Structures are given as C-alpha cells and as structure tokens.
C-alpha cells in the first residue's frame, strides 16, 4: 500500500537523483530523523552534499532558496510546520514571487516551499493552522495542494519543474493515507474524471444527477467524500465533487461546467472562513454562473484549540458538510 508520504518521499528521491541542481534545505532534515514528518527521509544519506540542514531561520531558508534559484539551482525548502509561513511572508511576497515580473522577465525563481499544514492532531493554536489562504492571489506565486487522489509525488515533481515559485501545501493527515484509485473502495459508485496539466483537478461524478457541487482541496476531500457518501446513502442527495490541486492562480473552469448543471455550490476548506479560498471560489462562480446559491464550510474564525472537543468544534466536520448540503 502506497501512502501519500511514500509518494512524496519517492518523488524527492527521484528528483535529486535525476537533477544535480536540486537541493533540499530546511530544519532537522538529516537522517536518521529525516524531517519532522519524514518526507525527506533517506535523502541526506544518499545525497549528503545537497541536503542542507538549517538553523531555525525560516526567512533565511526562503531567502537562501530564492538566491539559489536565481543563480541556477533548483531548491526545495521545507518549512517544518505550515504555521511558520508567516515568517517567510516577506521573502515570498516581496522577493521570490516578485522578481520575475519586477525584473521584466529577465530572471526566473524556480523554487518549491513545502509546508505541512492542518490540524486534527491536537497540536494547538500555532501548529495546526491552514494558512495557505494568506498566499492565494499573490502575483507570481503558485499555491499547490496534493490530495489522496492522483499522484501526489508527480504533483511535487511538477512543482519542482515549474519555472516560478510554488508553495506546496501538505496536510499532515494526508501523509498516512493510502493513494486512492478510481472505482475502488468508497469511490466505487463515482466516476472519476481529471484534467488540468501539470496540476490536475479531479471530478467525481455520482451515479445519479447531482443536486449540488462540492469544491474542495487537500485533506478536506476526505471529509467531503465521506459527506457525499452519507448524503447519497441516507438522504438521496447526489453531489459532484470537484477536487483542486492548483489553488492559486485560480482556474475554476471545470467547476463552472458542473455548476451550470447544479446551480448550487458548497466549498469545503480547513482554513478560517473569512476571506478564505471558498470566498474567492464563490465570488468567481457567481460572476460566471447565473442563479447560483452558495454555502461555505470552513474553520470558525478562531485560533485552533488544543483540547480535542474544542478543536473538533472549531474545524469543519463531515456533519457540517452534510448539514450545509441539506440547507440548499
């Protein structure tokens, strides 16, 4: 059984093997520890000169990666917890993402920042957030998030191959999930389509005409899928499920195709509700599809509590998605 973690780890191994310009840098990456979530496990043993363990200096990690990228290397930086992307904000917004355009296309900044995001592990207010929304819409930056669908490792390789900076958002709970295949397990009742190159989207179509369209990304597809099954089995409500891996720039064309059928959009994300990914998706959908009704399921606008019942109450749950879908 291949997990999302295996897929990402193998991708990094093959990328380092095939490209001597590829460097990996971040905190606590060296074996035998191999990174806080083990995504970089084994790399420092095989490629000791190109795996750079760093001090706790997120701004310098990103700045160094930017300089390396400007001068011919292909850096992949790890930010140990996605919560710490606040510490790289200046480097991302005012340096890495800006240089290509600001310098009149005379330079390229091909770097990847990997950031494990997300809660549901009881890590509390500063180690559980989904802060990617702060980076959506930053000109020159791509934000990409794998899910258990498709090939997360291939997605990471596509991010590495990109000529522009990419923030690669990995939800922590995804790491141990097995890769999902169409037609297997609880996906058996859905038809799977995908498109979009090199950062694919996935469309799961139910066995009967859909009443609504659910849009999501990353780990929250797991919740959306569970909710879709419950809605189908217990309420005879069928959903189109749209799963994006490219969050920004926004390209929602496949979503619009589904919405012209359903006229009902439900977005699901783990970041806080206000000004989140779903807000932009909804705004663009309303601008494009007439007669649209919208619901958003997201985290409450609160810090994430440590206590499990509180954390559960703050983060979106399957029941919230079911309730929102039934509220149309």
């Amino acid at each position, binding site marked *: 059984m291949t997990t999302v973690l295996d897929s990402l780890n193998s991708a990094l191994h093959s990328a380092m093997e095939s490209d001597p310009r590829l460097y990996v840098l971040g905190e606590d990456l060296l074996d035998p520890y191999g990174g806080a979530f083990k995504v970089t496990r084994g790399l420092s043993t095989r490629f000791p000169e190109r795996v750079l363990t760093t*001090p706790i200096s997120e*701004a310098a990690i990103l700045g*160094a990666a930017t*300089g390396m990228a*400007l001068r011919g290397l292909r850096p992949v930086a790890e930010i140990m917890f996605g919560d710490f992307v606040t510490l790289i904000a200046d480097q991302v917004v005012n340096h890495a993402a800006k240089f290509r355009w600001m310098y009149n296309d005379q330079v390229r900044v091909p770097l990847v920042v990997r950031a494990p995001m997300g809660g549901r592990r009881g890590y509390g207010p500063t180690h559980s957030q989904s802060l990617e929304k702060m980076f959506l819409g930053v000109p020159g930056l791509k934000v990409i998030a794998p899910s258990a669908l498709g090939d997360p490792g291939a997605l990471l390789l596509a991010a590495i191959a990109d000529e522009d900076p990419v923030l690669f958002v990995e939800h922590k709970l995804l790491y141990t999930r097995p890769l999902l295949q169409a037609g297997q397990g609880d996906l058996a009742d859905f038809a799977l389509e995908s498109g979009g190159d090199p950062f694919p989207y996935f469309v799961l179509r139910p066995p009967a005409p859909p009443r609504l369209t659910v849009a999501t990304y990353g780990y929250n597809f797991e919740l959306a899928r569970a909710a879709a099954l419950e809605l189908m089995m217990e309420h005879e409500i069928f959903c189109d499920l749209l799963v994006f891996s490219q969050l920004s720039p926004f390209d929602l064309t496949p979503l619009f195709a589904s919405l012209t059928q359903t006229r009902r959009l439900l977005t699901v994300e783990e970041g806080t509700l206000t000004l989140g990914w779903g807000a932009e998706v909804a705004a663009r959908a309303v601008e494009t599809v007439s007669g649209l009704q919208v619901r958003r399921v997201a985290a409450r606008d609160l810090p994430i509590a440590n206590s499990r019942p509180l954390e559960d109450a703050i983060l979106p749950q399957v029941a919230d998605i079911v309730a929102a879908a039934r509220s149309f």
Partner: protein
Amino acid sequence: MTDNFALYRTMLLIRRFEERLLAEFSTGKLVGTTHTYIGQEADAVGIFSVTDPDDIVFSNHRCHGHFLAYGASSPQGSDPYRLAAELMGKATGLVGGRGGSQHIQWRNFYSNGIQGGIVPVAAGMALAEKEQQSGKIVLVFIGDGTLGEGALYESLNLAALWRLPLLVVLENNRYAQTTPVELAVAGSMAGRFAAFGIPVWERETSDVLEIQSAAREAVAHVRFGAGPAALILHTYRFMAHSKGDDTRSPEELTRIRQFDPLTIHAPRLSPAERDAAEAEVSALLAEAFSRAASDPFPALTTDHRTLNTEH
C-alpha cells in the same frame, strides 16, 4: 588614462547623474521617489574597482551609485541611459519600467527596496556560486538602518556556517531616513559580524583610495574561499534620504561637505584631467537623459496582466 582618472570619472558620473535626477524631480519631469548616493560615491567606486566584472551584486533602495560603479567595472561600461529610462518609467529602462529606482536588474546586478530581506537572497546566491564553483563572489549592500532587521542576522549565521563567498558592505551614512544612528543602533557594528566569526574591514573615510585598499583585502578574503567578510564604511549622505525629508541642521549639512569624496580625490588629477572628466560625463548624461525622455512608455499586455490568473 590613469586609474585615478577612472575613479574620479565614475564618482563624477554618479554625482552628476544624481544631481540631474533631483533637478528633474523638482521640475516635475520625474515622478515617484529616489534615494541619491551623493556623498557616498567613493564607497561603490572604490569597491567595484577591485571586483571582477562577473561578480554578483545585490543592492538596496540607494542603488544608482552601486549600479553605475558596477557598470564601470564591466566590459560594457556604465549605462546611465537605461537607468534614466527606468527612472522615467520607459519601456527601454533596465527592467522595462516595472521596477523604477529601487528595483533594477542588469547582468549580475540586482536591487530591491526591502531592508534586510535582500541579505538572505544574497546568501543563497553565494551558496549557488560556491556549489557551482564559479569563482564568483556576491556583494550585498546594507546600511546602518538595515541593522534593525532580523533577517540580516539569520543570514550572517548561515553565511558563516556554510562559509559562503559573501561580502557584506555596510555603508553607515549615520541616518536611517531621519533617525540618527545613535537612536537606532545599540552596541558595536563590527561586533555584530565578529559574533558570527566574520572578519571585518572597517574604515572611517571618504577617500576612494583608502576604500579601494580595504575593499581589495576584503574581496580577496572572500574570493580565496575563506568565507564571508564584512566591509564597514562610515560615510556621509549629503542630500535628503529621498526627497524633501532632511531634518538635519544647515550647520551639519555644511560641516559634512568637508568629506566630499570628489574634493578629496580631485588633487590627484591635473586640472586638464578634471575638465576632461567633467566634459565626458556631461556629454554622456545629456545624451542619456534626452534619449530616455523621448523613449516610449510600456503598455500592459494581456500576458503580463494575467500572470496570476493563468499558469
């Protein structure tokens, strides 16, 4: 042509370029802002007289002087025309009018307007050059004001840990915008580098030859592979931080003019050489500014507008 003549001519080019800019602003021909290098010319000219043409430079908001001196060290020579065009927002500017005064890129020269944030980028560049064994070194220019930024210290730590070919040039012009260094910098400037084991060359001078001599040693240290170095130059900024924001007294502004690098260096040239430099610079700038003024403005194309809505 003597070395002293070349040093003088480049300092004069910077001085006259910046004077022209301020004049153009006052007549409304230029908009936005600028940060002139007047008074500090000896720093850049001394340093770039001892670097290699392909060395890499990351400069800051006060970058015109660095750029013109860097250009003078290159085979192409200084290009005040494309800098002027950039400042006028013209399509022929160094970055097509997108960056303006603080954000330029040409050959291996880069600048950005964020204090401190450029230093880790420069460290990463130095790492890339070291790993690719290019023999190039990276120079990053900071000021006394930059000493307040945390990213600087993260970068010094990395540069020392990884023995990067990075020369940090700290130009202490004694004011961060309007804030005197006494109100912004505690302790020792050199001590900041010493704490990371980074050797320091420190000079209190506006004499281009003294700066050249210190820079030669610091550059040699870095190029030899001995790790990063710092060059601290205590200097004077004669004009406002940008435009019209000078709160210093007239007495102070008069007093610091005794440290004019042009006046200090001029006696090493004959009157005929000085006249020749003046005439050469004057002709170069007249041509640069008039040509830039008649160049077209850039247009926003679909491709550029949608940088963030398509991939």
